């Protein structure tokens, strides 16, 4: 029997944004007996996962695993619930569509729901696809999926963070858990002679941070992981946006629905909350100037403009090398369309917890981690890219995408042929998420799946209408999101 390497005793997290603090808390809390040090350098402005306030429902699952309830992780940290996004002008001539989080339709007969819907759409009798999605209808109505029973349980809420307060909450929690906090910038990274492992991170004041494993959450510069290698898979030929301007506007009623509107050279968002309205403009510098982007947001009522941030989309094919794993923007830089940034970071943290190797970071264990991480990231990229690949706009920014990645090409080909979506391991977005975007942007299959023919058209129509009616009734019983938020804040005395 071969002897095995000793367990990891200490992990150092580099980076003091919400990604770094999330990692420090999760590792300390969920891996028994591991000591955690964080080098809490404030994240650079181009660390998108540390900056973007909109998150996916997975954030709530991440909180659950930490034992953090909604009162602490959402309400006391200044968060509000968000239910989904309304996409506008991505396919001119088509109505805006809502992508919220949950199922769409109910299967009946021998075929999945969407085949019923696609047949009705072909015949010109279909109600909007989203009318069969409880989550989308709740988002349109601005109502909370509460109580989560029956049809309402099909919808999941996500969180819109108040980033500085959320970071402060995580920091307080980390200190409470006994995470060692070090301040200062990283000056150099010292590699071990014999195997190239990270030996220590030296701070500007000359002190050293040592650990068995280093988690690089320092933003796209990847100051630690980058000391090992700089292999990078570039996505810019497909994902052309490379600038972001954010701003704030006046407080409004919270609807839980943000608006994401396509523009001639990118897109912009607008998310109203009772504390402020969040604005952002994501664009390609080759087609739009920073001044024009700021002008767009100003015209939408935004003030408190941040300077434009430059980024370049892509990923590290091997986020984990030797004893260093990159997360957040150190691993993957992706535009905030669909707000996957913090989700990817949280998912990487979950994966580190679940797959933590021993001190030797055996190549097989690292390869298994990288295989899963890569599979996940590639499909998130595909989902974001799908918005561009199926958009129908005429401006130069939107035209002439080069050949798509194989995985996305396969999804699109299968859908366009017959409305089928192939299965991928580690997929973040469900089949219904994909369908919402594909159908919302007008990508329709060439033919109807023959499996649907065993169900009469009239039966399909009846079942769909009954489900829409049931959604309508269920939604009308749910509380108004803004009123609910205020009542919860009042309960906590805020």
């Amino acid at each position, binding site marked *: *029997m071969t002897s095995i390497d000793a367990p990891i005793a200490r992990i150092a997290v580099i980076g003091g944004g919400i990604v770094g603090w999330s990692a420090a808390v999760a590792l300390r809390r969920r891996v*028994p*007996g*591991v000591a955690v040090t964080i080098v809490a350098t404030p994240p650079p402005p181009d660390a998108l996962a540390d900056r973007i306030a909109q998150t996916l429902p997975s954030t709530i699952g991440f909180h659950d695993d930490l034992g953090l309830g909604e009162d602490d992780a959402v309400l006391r940290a200044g968060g509000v619930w968000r239910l989904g996004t309304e996409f506008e002008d991505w396919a001119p001539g088509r109505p805006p569509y809502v992508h919220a989080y949950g199922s769409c339709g109910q299967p009946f007969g021998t075929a999945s729901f969407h085949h019923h819907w696609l047949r009705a759409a072909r015949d010109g009798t279909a109600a909007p696809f989203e009318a069969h999605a409880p989550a989308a209808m709740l988002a349109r109505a601005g109502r909370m999926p509460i109580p989560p029973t029956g049809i309402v349980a099909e919808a999941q809420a996500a969180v819109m963070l108040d980033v500085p307060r959320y970071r402060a909450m995580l920091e307080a929690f980390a200190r409470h858990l006994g995470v060692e906090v070090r301040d200062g910038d990283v000056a150099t990274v010292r590699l071990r002679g014999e195997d190239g492992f990270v030996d220590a991170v030296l701070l500007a004041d000359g002190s050293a941070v040592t650990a068995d494993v280093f988690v690089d959450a320092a933003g796209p510069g990847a100051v630690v992981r980058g000391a090992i290698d700089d292999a990078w898979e570039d996505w810019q030929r497909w994902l052309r946006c490379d600038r972001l301007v954010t701003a704030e506007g006046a407080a409004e009623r919270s609807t839980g629905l943000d608006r994401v509107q396509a523009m001639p050279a990118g897109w912009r968002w607008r998310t109203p909350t009772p504390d402020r309205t969040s604005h952002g403009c994501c664009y390609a510098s080759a087609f739009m100037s920073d001044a024009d982007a700021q002008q767009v947001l100003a015209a939408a009522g935004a003030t408190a403009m941040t300077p434009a941030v430059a980024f370049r989309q892509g990923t590290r094919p091997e986020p984990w090398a030797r004893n260093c794993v990159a997360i957040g923007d150190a691993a993957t830089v992706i535009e905030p369309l669909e707000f996957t940034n913090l989700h990817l970071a949280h998912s990487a943290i979950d994966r580190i917890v679940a797959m933590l190797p021993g001190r030797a970071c055996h190549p097989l264990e690292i*390869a298994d981690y990288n295989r899963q991480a890569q599979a996940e990231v590639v499909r998130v990229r595909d989902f974001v890219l799908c918005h561009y690949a199926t958009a129908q706009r005429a401006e130069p920014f939107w035209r002439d995408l080069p050949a798509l990645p194989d995985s996305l090409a396969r999804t699109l080909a299968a859908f366009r042929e*017959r409305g*089928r979506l192939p299965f991928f391991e580690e997929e973040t977005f469900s089949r219904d998420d994909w369908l919402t975007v594909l159908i919302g942007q007008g990508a329709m299959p060439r*033919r109807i799946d023959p499996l649907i023919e*065993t169900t009469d058209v009239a039966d399909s129509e009846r079942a769909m209408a009954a489900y829409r009616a049931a959604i309508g009734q269920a939604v009308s019983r749910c509380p108004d999101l803004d009123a609910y938020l205020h009542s919860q804040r009042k309960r906590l005395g805020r």
Partner: protein
Amino acid sequence: MVVVGGGTSGWMAATALAKLLPSRCTVELVESEAIGIIGVGEATLPHIRAFNERLGIVEAEFMAATRATFKLGIEFRDWGRIGDSYIHPFGTFGRGSGEVQFHHYYTRLLRDGVPLPPIESYSMACSLARANRFGQPARDPQQIASTFGYAYQFDAVAFAPYLRRIAEGLGARRTEGRIVAAERDSRSGDVTALVLEDGRRVQGDLFVDCSGFVALLIGKELAEPFEDWSRWLPADRAVAIPCRTATAVTPYTSAIAMPSGWRWRIPLQHRTGNGYVFASDFLSESAATDALLGAVEGTPLADPRILRFKAGRRARSWVNNVVAVGLASGFLEPLESTSLYLVQQAITALIELFPEKRIAPVDRDEFNRLINMEYDRVRDFLILHYHATERDDSPFWTYVRTMPIPDSLAEKMALFKRRGRVVKYREGAFLDASWVSVYLGQRVVPTGADPRAAAPSTDSLVAGLDRMRGEIAAAVGAMPAHAAFLAGYCPMRAAT
């Protein structure tokens, strides 16, 4: 739409297509009564239940007609070492919920030096099987009795006619005749018609090749290459003998390792199927027959039959307008009861990707990708059974113990040996618990701990495990004997 061959796979395909795509195709099945079907008593995986349900098959009626019994898993005897026995269950170990899998805690306690019974004591499916009891799983996920599934053991010779009645009721047409030739389109290479011995022609747009090992269309006609896996799975013969059931009807299949392979024991209501799967490089057919006759319990009901095969699969199962299903597409020995599972996956994929008259390459490629993935994953799982052994008592076991294995399997085994990690995927026949049962059952034990399993104290873990065994014992005790359940639920009809 023409189905070539009327064995189990042929009638499964014909029934499913007639049921689910009635307006899209007319199903014609060509078979010859002169050609026998390979039906040796079939053990299945739980997936078959979803397939039957989709076809509208009533479980009790189907079980009575095929003299079926319930199956909670497979018992493996003498694999890791002579004298070992474990069950690969259809169900989880522990409750199967929670972030950290049960086996991490279990193996941690073993390493801590705590004496524990085998891991199967913490599986509802295994415990039910060992007690020879059966009951339907509970629906409430809180109950321990919800943590198992089941499949069937049935008479495959009776299953095909049972399906045939359903298929013909749905409008499928059966044509009797021996196929002597196929006509092809000279430009595309597509098959256009089958020519029967008496000169009749059967035309079609799509041909489903269920002709078995002969592989009439995919092999003989289209010459699709066969990927030979016999260097990893050297067994290439089986000898089969049905016996009168001598002992209680067990709710599980047994796979008992033999000096040059293994033998199956599949209990049906009226008889027990037995067979010895062996490698002809190591054992002659007559010696294998003698060994089997010496090992079986009960009186033989027929003469021994020899089957010859080779492990592997076609490079592609769908070529031109020919879709191979079952033995025509590939063969993996029945060690983990995957034969009908692979048939079912092929039929399901064909229905999901059913083409128009002009076949879209995107559909065909996707079908081949899916089917190849299924075969490859089952292959690795089967090789594990042979390779993870300490047996050195025969040249056969020494060969499989020391043979080079595929990289994909070597990596999986190394990851488990280090820290008990099971390579994760959501699709495929065998998920976490299956791999864990074979690893631990064949003495592949992790040397290191999953750090997440370190938190609870030894005492609290042991107490939790004891409680779980108590819960399982109570749930098992509340269920009837397997034979009694069968007698009340689906007594077999008189043999026809």
